[in-house]
């Protein structure tokens, strides 16, 4: 498959003016302002094939938006190379941005006062989409996202879920090969989230659109992305599939048992108790050193068990441990 995005050692440092406190400090700041260097990206490299669906995650201030801004051509890195579909994004803005689509979950690119359909028509003219292709794209998208009934409603009257569906359509009318999504499910209710996820995975499968999602909602990633890039403090921490991430950073499994009686005596093996709530106790164990069936058997020999669940720890915990370790 062709390489879609190639990032090689990009670096970016921001200079942030330090604010001094108090009125005197503010006056001093007028004449002699001190700047703090903030390294947003520190030799970041990765490459993405065309047609991939990538989850791009990291804590706040990790450098996610900076990376997206550089990839979309609106910010220049201090150092390093970057090619998107064969061209350097910031060198040829107009031809670059006509091949990508960008959706910000917290901002709309639609015209607030206009009916939805008129925003779409304006975007058609801005992107110079030939009429026939516009018709075709609009038909397809509005069918997939169930939009036809809201075409004539002004954008300001839409619900958040409806607005997000319209924003997705707006970003795709010019058939971009790469779609950047910045927190596309933020604030959405459950059905809308599912609708957006379902749509994205269909888009990726049927049209082969490369999709890059930044999000804090790890369910988005779990249900959509085979591959995740984790960054913190501008450095790449992990690049691979979600399963590997779990394995390499957080091997433990969880065993959740409901006992018949409330017993405090659990010195079976050296099991760690994660939490305890009435008759329900959650243990953690390492599947490499002891297998679940053996463990359960050993517990069942001594205690009456009512119910059992074996689970992976929630992905949130994996990620936060990863962030935590990288900050040390």
């Amino acid at each position: 498959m062709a390489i879609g995005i190639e990032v090689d050692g990009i670096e970016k440092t921001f200079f942030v003016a330090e604010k001094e406190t108090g009125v005197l400090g503010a006056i001093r700041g007028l004449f002699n302002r001190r700047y703090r260097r903030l390294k947003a990206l520190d030799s970041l490299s990765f490459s993405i094939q065309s047609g991939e669906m990538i989850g791009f995650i990291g804590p706040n201030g990790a450098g996610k938006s900076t990376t997206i801004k550089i990839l979309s051509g609106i910010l220049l890195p201090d150092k390093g190379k970057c090619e998107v579909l064969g061209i350097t994004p910031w060198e040829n803005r107009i031809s670059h941005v006509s091949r990508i689509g960008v959706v910000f979950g917290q901002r709309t690119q639609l015209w607030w006062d206009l009916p939805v359909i008129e925003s779409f028509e304006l975007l058609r003219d801005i992107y110079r989409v030939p009429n026939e292709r516009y018709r075709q794209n609009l038909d397809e998208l509005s069918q997939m996202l169930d939009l036809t009934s809201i075409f004539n409603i002004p954008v300001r009257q839409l619900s958040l879920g409806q607005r997000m569906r319209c924003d997705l359509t707006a970003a795709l009318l010019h058939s971009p090969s790469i779609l950047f999504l910045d927190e596309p499910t933020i604030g959405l209710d459950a059905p809308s989230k599912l609708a957006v996820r379902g749509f994205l995975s269909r888009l990726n499968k049927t049209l082969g659109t490369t999709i890059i999602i930044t999000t804090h909602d790890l369910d988005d990633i779990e249900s959509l992305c085979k591959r995740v890039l984790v960054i913190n403090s501008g450095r790449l921490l992990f690049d691979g599939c979600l399963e590997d991430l779990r394995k390499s950073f957080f091997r433990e499994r969880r065993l959740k048992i409901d006992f018949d009686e409330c017993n405090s005596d659990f010195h079976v093996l050296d099991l760690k108790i994660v939490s305890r709530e009435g008759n329900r106790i959650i243990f953690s164990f390492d599947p490499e050193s002891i297998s679940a069936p053996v463990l359960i058997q050993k517990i069942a020999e001594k205690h009456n068990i009512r119910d059992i669940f074996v689970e992976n720890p929630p992905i949130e915990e994996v990620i936060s441990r990863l962030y935590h370790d990288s900050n040390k």
Partner: protein
Amino acid sequence: MKDLRLYFRLVSVSIKSQMEYRASFLMTSFGNFLLTGIDFVGVWVLFSRFGKLKDWSLPEAAILYGIINMGFALSEAVFRGFDTFDRMVKSGDFDRVLLRPRNTVIQILGQELQMMRIGRFSQGLAVILWGGLKLKIFFSIPCLALLLFAILGSAALFSGLFVLQATLSFWTIDSLEIVNTVTYGGVETAQFPLSIYNRWFRGFFTFVIPLACINYFPAHAILGKKDVLGYPEFFGWVSPFFGFAFLWFCFKIWEFGVRNYKSTGS
């Protein structure tokens, strides 16, 4: 050419959404007419007290007044996007402009054509018509041409200032007041003949911000007056183009600002 089509497309959307609130449009336009009209009352009071200012009569000053107000109103309406550009930078909407495959200036101009500025425009027009009728001028083609050049030139000059103000917001958020003293201050200044001011002030508004070129010199040519400052009469014809030269220069600075924005972020 295609950009021009996009401009009209965007602007027609802006006008349409302003017309949705018709009562509001009518009220603000009328308010703008009255509010800016108070300036002329000030001019009138001054002349009725002193009779003449450096051999300028009130109807003659009305020509200066009309040119500058009509030009400024045009500029305020058309360059509204640049006037409020600091908000675009703050909200991150400028990023959206950069993400679209079209000329950024066209997109910013297309943002809004502020129709209520018709208040100041018609007020300036009324004053200039009154002055013209009183002096019995304007009824020749050259006179109308001079007037048109001067109005367009002053619109270009103020637009340049709006572009400059927008460019500043790439670096700082709150220093727009500095530019306001030159835009609004410039309008106030140019409502009176330049010859009443002192030397360095005249110099500033002739050579740094070429305010004299788009109003004082053309007004001499229109009125057939001899300039007490000794500038030749053909200046009235050529100088309005300094307004456009100024606008062009400001766009160059703007481009530099955009490049800086792309390398520093916000």
